[in-house]
């Protein structure tokens, strides 16, 4: 039986709290933990009696340009915290879903002016001209909103407009 030494779990805890400070460069109110892209944190003991974090992340979208910046951000906070060696691995399966976004993350999105993904996932099918989901305007809370385009300012967002306050807004679309 392998006994996990206590200091390893302490180190893991420290890494999780460091990750809380790494944010998405395009949606800076969200941490990588809010986004749900950290899949695993492990710590390995190295020869020089140091600890080597091994962090597994998963991309939101295949072509998301923020992923490289996020990996770099993780590396930077770990270096600043005194870790000398680290490994950041990327996995694709299971594929990321907006269901992994934290409830806190959804609240932060709304406060930032982006409609968060619905709590109950709409089924995304390839059928044309589906009935659109009702999305609440993050500015005035009206449900009287219209989809402008399924593709918005970044891969993860759709573009909506509010028929009441007349403001356009981004919706972090279900995925």
């Amino acid at each position: 039986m392998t006994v996990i030494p206590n200091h390893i779990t302490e180190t893991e805890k420290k890494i999780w709290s460091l990750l809380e400070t790494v944010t998405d460069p395009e949606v800076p109110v969200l941490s990588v933990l809010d986004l749900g892209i950290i899949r695993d944190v492990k710590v390995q003991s190295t020869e020089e009696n140091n600890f080597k974090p091994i962090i597994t992340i998963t991309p939101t979208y295949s072509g998301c340009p923020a992923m490289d910046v996020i990996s770099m951000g993780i590396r930077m906070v770990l270096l600043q915290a005194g870790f000398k060696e680290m490994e950041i691995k990327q996995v694709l399966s299971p594929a990321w879903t907006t269901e992994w976004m934290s409830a806190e993350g959804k609240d932060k999105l709304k406060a930032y002016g982006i409609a968060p993904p619905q709590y109950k996932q709409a089924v995304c099918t390839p059928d044309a001209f589906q009935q659109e989901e009702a999305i609440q305007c993050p500015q005035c809370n009206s449900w009287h909103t219209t989809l402008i385009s399924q593709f918005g300012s970044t891969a993860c967002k759709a573009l909506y407009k509010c028929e009441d306050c007349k403001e356009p807004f981004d919706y972090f679309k279900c995925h």
Partner: protein
Amino acid sequence: MNASLINYTLHLADNALTIGHRNSEWCGHGPVLEQDIAISNIALDGIGQARNFYQYAASLSGNGATEDTLAYLRDVIDYKNLLITELPNGDWAQTTLRQFLFSTYQYFFYQQLEKSTDRQLAAIAEKSLKEVTYHVRWSSEWVIRLGDGTEESHKRLSNAVTELWNYTGELFIPASYEKELIATGIAVDLSVIQPLWQQKVSNVFSEATIAIPDKSFAQQGGKEGIHTEHLGYILAEMQFLQRAYPGAEW
């Protein structure tokens, strides 16, 4: 076996990169801002999927290959993309029709590839499928809107069908390296997805009031490295920097 798997992975990467590059040509030129953003997003998804396949192909090949050497330092004869992905964009009708024909193919293709005995190909397929679902929806809406729109838009969509149809047969003809992998459950059996594709295309065409051409001639060769003259121009633009300044990074 390994050589076939590398070729197959490159074929999938080249498809995604080539159509991604073509779509990126619309960036800043779309008919309206929202649709410019939409096609640029679709281009980005394609290039992202291509990166995943190239990274995997590079890990299989060794010999110092990287995603960049595979994308930027192979010539026309090494590229294995389907011909339809390299054709010029034409007008908006031709671009959205090509996207519909190809995305619908990718949709059923990735659904099967998710069950591949190769775990990395299955993982890339699982990831990509979610993105392609949005592409099919967007492009079929355009096909229906244009086909069932005005006299002018109907005419343009009909012309696009005439232009592109001969390139759809190739989607379902397995290359030599592919046949071996189909037998071992790694590659997608194209005969399984062909009827699904035909059914979906037929439904959308009927909503678009467009007839399916009865021609059966298929332009082919892309998967084996025999391309139209258009691919050379794409590579000339895409690869210029790495050819002129080898190893340049930013």
